């Protein structure tokens, strides 16, 4: 093993030296290196065939904290890691369906409990080491190890029991589930296969967290993704280079990726990212707000802007429905009487002008929401949920039915009073760092003023906001947003289950507080083990309908995924699933070759 590794490295060095020595021979040699060897079994990607070479510069909000896929939780780390790792089965971000990746095939037993995975032939890590079933076994052992605290672990617990993995031979493994798993092979997406030859020793020594950090030397880190680590300059950039052993080819049999280098620049604010993109320092931009998108669209100079449609982010207003028992402040307890009243929430929902939110906050580049699933989640959205237009009359009627009355306020405007004659006043928390949500809250404030409710908007720093919502529970109402990580009901299961940690309006309940929350629990559990898409869809539709009827969250709007790239970049097709632009990074190429590589 060790020898083979050494010789292959030498061989690679020789290949890279040759072009310098004999210029005439160079194209032939490179072409040979880029053709897969006969015993390999690469995945051929359809789509436009590009040309090799060049570098792509991408800006990143913050420095990634780690390159270790087992431990990464922050968005920048995940974005970088996504270009350096591969999974057994992958979700195609464009079609939102699964496709075979490192696994050549996945066979599911008739009872839905056994998944037999056959690996591709001739797979190699980015350092040239071959991959076999032992690496896969090792990877799942690490993910399932409680002491590692991997965020992926929860996904691998089905029916209360962890998945078990058995090796059949060097290319074949069997995954055993305790219960049928509705998500099916999507569970494998994002679970990077780890290099056992590099990680086994640190893992056994309990030092897994120390490896795969940014200071790890490039030759001590390997993955199966299209790129591998080259250089890290603290505070400035991270440079990845082409993985010469990558296991995908284009339609012409040319080994991917096309790009020689992928550079991540650390640019802290989105406005600064726009400036970098405008000045040509960065080649692509994603995660754009609508305002910056229109600024860039107006001054288009050699780049293309794409509106990929609504993504999976849903923004909503919710009220504090926590049952704090005797600890509740009397003032909050009084307000909770309104918040617990379904008609009050329905009235607020009827009064909110969602179209204005889409128009004024997202400049029309978004979709109004009446349920939790965005139109971007094409396979799961319940199209039966109604889209009632804003109606203050309906809102007033609902409030009247719930015992609210109006009196003339100090300034002559009507003021809403509850059954006990107290004025309806509450505050809405928003994150001060999110201008979009602050703007939504200001619009809602004005909408509710027309019902006679006095609402204050309180922008808070994000951490203290989360602390109030999840820990101290000292708040009236809050505007937040969530992004589903996958177009599947399970990605939000912790939001809908009453014992879920992100069941925001009343998290981690021992028993469902209301009958309808119990009903959602039952439906979510049922869809978890249902195996056919039609069955699951029916169950999840019901969940969406219950949420739309009882309005524990008043769903507001979902922004479009907006991205841009220089015109010279080929195969640029932003998706609505993360990573929006780099999901097909192996297929991105520079139309005019390496001409801009020197920047």
């Amino acid at each position, binding site marked *: 093993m060790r020898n083979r590794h050494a010789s292959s490295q030498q061989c690679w060095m020789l290949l890279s030296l040759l072009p310098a020595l004999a210029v005439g021979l160079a194209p032939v040699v490179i072409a040979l290196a880029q053709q897969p060897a006969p015993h390999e079994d690469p995945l051929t990607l359809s789509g436009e065939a590009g040309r090799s070479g060049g570098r792509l510069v991408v800006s990143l909000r913050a420095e990634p904290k780690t390159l270790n896929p087992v431990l990464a939780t922050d968005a920048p780390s995940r974005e970088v890691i996504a270009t350096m790792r591969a999974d057994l089965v992958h979700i195609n971000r464009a079609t939102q369906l699964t496709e075979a990746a490192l696994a050549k095939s996945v066979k599911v037993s008739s009872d839905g409990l056994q998944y037999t995975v056959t690996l591709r032939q001739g797979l190699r890590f980015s350092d040239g080491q071959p991959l076999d079933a032992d690496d896969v076994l090792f990877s799942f052992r690490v993910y399932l190890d409680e002491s590692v605290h991997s965020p992926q672990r929860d996904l691998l617990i089905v029916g209360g029991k962890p998945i078990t993995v058995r090796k059949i031979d060097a290319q074949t493994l069997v995954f055993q589930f305790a219960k049928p798993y509705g998500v099916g092979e999507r569970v494998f997406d994002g679970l990077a296969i780890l290099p056992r030859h590099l990680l086994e020793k640190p893992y056994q020594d309990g030092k897994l967290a120390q490896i795969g950090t940014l200071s790890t030397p490039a030759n001590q880190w390997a993955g199966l993704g299209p790129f591998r680590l080259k250089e890290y300059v603290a505070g400035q950039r991270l440079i990845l280079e082409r993985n010469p052993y990558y296991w995908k080819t284009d339609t012409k049999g040319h080994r991917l990726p096309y790009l020689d280098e992928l550079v991540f620049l650390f640019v802290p604010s989105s406005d600064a990212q726009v400036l970098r993109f405008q000045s040509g320092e960065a080649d692509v931009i994603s995660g754009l707000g609508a305002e910056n998108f229109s*600024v860039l669209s107006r001054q288009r100079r050699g780049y293309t802007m794409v509106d990929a449609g609504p993504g999976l982010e849903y923004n909503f207003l919710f009220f504090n429905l926590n049952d704090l028992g005797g600890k509740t402040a009397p003032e909050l307890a009084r307000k909770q009487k309104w918040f617990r009243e379904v008609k009050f929430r329905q009235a607020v929902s009827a009064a909110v002008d969602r179209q204005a939110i889409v*128009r004024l906050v997202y400049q029309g580049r978004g979709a109004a929401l009446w349920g939790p699933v965005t139109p971007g989640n094409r396979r799961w959205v319940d199209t039966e949920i109604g889209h009632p237009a804003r109606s203050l009359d309906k809102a007033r009627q609902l409030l009247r039915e719930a015992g609210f009355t109006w009196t003339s306020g100090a300034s002559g405007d009507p003021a809403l009073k509850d059954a006990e004659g107290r004025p309806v006043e509450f505050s809405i928390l928003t994150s001060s760092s999110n201008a979009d949500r602050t703007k939504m809250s200001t619009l809602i404030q004005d909408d509710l003023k027309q019902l006679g409710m006095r609402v204050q908007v*309180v922008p*808070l720093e994000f951490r203290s906001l989360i602390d109030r919502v999840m820990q101290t529970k000292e708040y009236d109402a809050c505007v937040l947003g969530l992004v589903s990580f996958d177009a599947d009901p399970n990605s939000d299961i912790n939001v809908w289950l009453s014992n879920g940690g992100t069941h925001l309006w009343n998290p981690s309940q021992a028993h469902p507080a209301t009958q309808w929350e119990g009903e959602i629990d039952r439906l979510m559990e049922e869809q978890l083990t249902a195996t056919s898409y039609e069955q699951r869809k029916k169950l999840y539709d019901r969940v969406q309908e219950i949420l739309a009827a009882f309005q524990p969250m008043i769903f507001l709007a979902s922004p479009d995924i907006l991205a841009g790239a220089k015109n010279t970049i080929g195969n640029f097709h932003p998706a609505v699933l993360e990573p929006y632009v780099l999901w097909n990074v192996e297929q991105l190429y520079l139309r005019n070759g390496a001409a801009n590589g020197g920047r």
Partner: protein
Amino acid sequence: MIERRKLAKWLVVLVALHGLIACAGFFAPYDPVEQDRELPYARPMKLHLIDTQGRVHMRPFFYPLRIREGSFDQYDEDIARAMSLKFFGEGPRYRLLGLVPCRLHLFGAAGARICLLGTDGYGRDQLSRILYGGQVSLLAGLLGAGITLSLGLGIGAAAGYFGGWRDEVLMRLTEPFLALPWLYMLLGLRAFLPLAVSPLEAFLLIVIVIGAVGWARPARLVRGVVLSAKERDFVRAARGFGAPNRYLLWRHVLPETSSVLLTQAAILIPQYVLAEMTLSFLGLGVPEPLASWGNLLANLQQYSVLTSYWWMYLPALAIVPFFLGYLGLASALQEWADPFKVEGGRERSMG
């Protein structure tokens, strides 16, 4: 005589400017928090006297804006509908000087909104917001300066008049206040206070925070004046006749500080307006939807606003006449109080 005329001139200018802001409700055509969701980021509308057919109108008129199809912030003038301005008509309710309920407005228009200085992202009239925002900013400046000067006068007079260990302690106390960078101090002070407060509380907090920071320099100036005043012959004489401290301070010493205090006030007020703007700009001032000049400028923190909507800069221009007025007043005051020698008031305070 020249000094007096100069002083009167600047006073008239300032009174006029403050009157404009104090009667914002009358001069502003709309309620500053009223949104027009069909009109976000509308550019300032033009007033015309001659229409497309070349006819001359007696009253100025405008063409209402119509949003361009498929656009968010691009508008066309609706030339078919010439709307004339109505002067002294009825409009939204307001309270004149915060007291008298009133509906009379200087101008307005029926059937369409006239936004002479454009609108913001919620379609709120920028002119109304600047006028109403001025009330918050100027009042914060005036009250803040009042607090500072009272503190400065009290502490400075006590230190200068009584001297000895009292002087030592008080003057050592001023030193950290002089040395600290005031902006960071304002931010630090504000951070101690609760975030979720009602608009009135937020306003009072900001006034107290601003007022409590800058007292050290006026205190030093007052102390200097008091030190020299208490050694004047007529003060010594009064003391010799057995006048008590309170009488001496009130009758003979403090009147000597009036010119310093007036000059200081003229310098501090615009500075405190700026301080309020800074805090509001950073999101620590009065909350949305209320306007203050700093709040209005906070829109410019977004790159897209900075590059796309020039009229969002206008609140920054609004402060210019006020600053000129106050600084002109300060120098006129100084010349009037003491035309031959320059002292005290010229000194730069608060960075």
